[in-house]
């Protein structure tokens, strides 16, 4: 009755109304920002009096925004590579190893995911001040790696647990070296896990704000830090342009993920 859409009667319309309103609530702010980034009003008047691309020109003409975007990208790529490789090793150990304290170790690896990020940010900030890593690319990469790694390990342990190890054993029995069997049989079979781990790690670093605020220096800041610093002064439409570009990157990554998932299933 209540779980059959067509026998809900009048409630069906109530549920649909709430759902559409919520979808609008979730979608409209994003569309609104995209529209405002092309609006001519400095004061973000909506609907805009005229359309323009001047905020994008300002964005691309300002080396500080470009620097910040490049820094974000560089750091996110390094975090992705390290997170996938270290995560893969850890996942092999957690899934295949039979040793004391394995469950505890897995829980430890997941802790950075549940710890409030502001606590980690303050702790790492103090630590990096002491060892001289504050405001360095290395510091950024380490900080983001700590929060990206749990997602990577989670995706890869799930993938490895779903992989039938006897296939790898069969390759070894047929004469492949264990290393070769893993590279040519196991890794391709868990490619969806590798892909999820990479996408999650990249987005974790690319979108991360709180750690970045503490790690940043006047000469080294990521895109979110630049947006944060600008936002605290005024709501300039340049931020709308920067946000729209970030949203485009997100949509592109979501589409690629959906396509890759489809491709891997087929």
């Amino acid at each position, binding site marked *: 009755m*209540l779980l059959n859409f067509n026998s809900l009667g009048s409630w069906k319309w109530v549920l649909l109304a709430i759902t559409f309103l919520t979808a609008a609530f979730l979608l409209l702010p994003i569309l609104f920002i995209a529209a405002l980034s092309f609006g001519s009003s400095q004061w973000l008047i*909506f609907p805009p009096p005229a359309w323009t691309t001047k905020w994008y020109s300002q964005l691309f003409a300002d080396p500080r925004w470009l620097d910040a975007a490049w820094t974000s990208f560089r750091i996110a790529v390094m975090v992705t590579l390290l997170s996938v490789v270290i995560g893969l090793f850890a996942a092999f150990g957690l899934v295949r190893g039979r040793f004391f304290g394995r469950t505890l170790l897995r829980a430890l690896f997941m802790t950075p*995911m549940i710890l409030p990020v502001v606590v980690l940010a303050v702790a790492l900030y103090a630590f990096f001040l002491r060892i001289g890593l504050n405001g360095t690319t290395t510091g950024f990469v380490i900080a983001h790696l700590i929060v990206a790694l749990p997602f990577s390990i989670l995706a890869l342990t799930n993938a490895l647990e779903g992989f039938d190890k006897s296939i790898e054993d069969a390759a070894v029995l047929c004469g492949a070296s264990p290393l070769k069997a893993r590279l040519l049989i196991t890794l391709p079979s868990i490619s969806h896990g590798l892909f999820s781990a990479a996408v999650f790690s990249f987005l974790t670093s690319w979108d991360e704000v709180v750690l970045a605020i503490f790690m940043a220096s006047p000469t080294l800041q990521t895109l979110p830090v630049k947006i944060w610093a600008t936002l605290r002064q005024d709501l300039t439409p340049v931020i709308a342009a920067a946000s729209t570009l970030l949203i485009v990157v997100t949509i592109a990554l979501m589409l690629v993920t959906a396509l890759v998932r489809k491709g891997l299933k087929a």
Partner: protein
Amino acid sequence: MASPTSALEEQTTTRFRLGDRSSTLPALVLILIFFVLPVLALLARSVTEPVLGLGNYVELLGSSTYIKIFFNTFFVSALVTVISLLIGFPVAWALAIMPQRLATVIFAIVLLSMWTNLLARTYAWMVLLQRTGVINKALLGLGIIDKPLIMVNNLTGVTIGMTYIMLPFIIIPLYGVIRKIDPALLQAAALCGANRRQALTSVLIPLAMPGMAAGGLMVFVMSLGYFVTPSLLGGTSNMMLAELIAQFVQSLVNWGMGGAAAFVLLVVTLSLYALQLRLFGAAGEGGR
């Protein structure tokens, strides 16, 4: 995984160390040096700076200023959790039973909003809710209000901004729970004479309760430690705990108090997660 330990497995695992405890070493070293050590060092500073003892905690838990911040943090988190559940439940319910094609579109919107950069979303609300923003303009134009509502730098702003962020974390897990409920149970309720309202309150809601409790607890815990949205959309009079920690460290350079406040947040968060694990197992764990 269920295969017995064969001689082959023995051979491969002893010769190649990839399936061994040692391959977890890089991750372990990284976590120990750059996670466990700094967090412990920060906590150590809370009981050693400026002098050895629990002075910082006494000050933190004894001052009405700080107590007000703790109270406000809990209040905002609870409010956001309740509103998210009230909106999230009907949406998850509708998603679970609506035509597949429509559900896919709604799902894509939920995921898009969840994946959109946090600052971009917060910026959108700052612009929408401001005094001269589109919401005030519309309400004024419709004659509903005669002077602009103040919706930023106060409780309204934080609540709207945080609910926006937390809704997907309720909708997605709750959808999974409702989907798994057997429709026959509700048919049985109808056959036994229950009307829709009775079926809702005594069958559907109780069956969905584990999902609501797990999702609600997760959202509550996440809200407790939130920093960005409260500091941009909230006011100085309703500061939250994460902002207090940042302020102690960045503006006041008081590591003792900062460490103590961080420790309070850490203990509350970890105990609520422990409670969640105890009540619902690992099902509420995010990141899938």
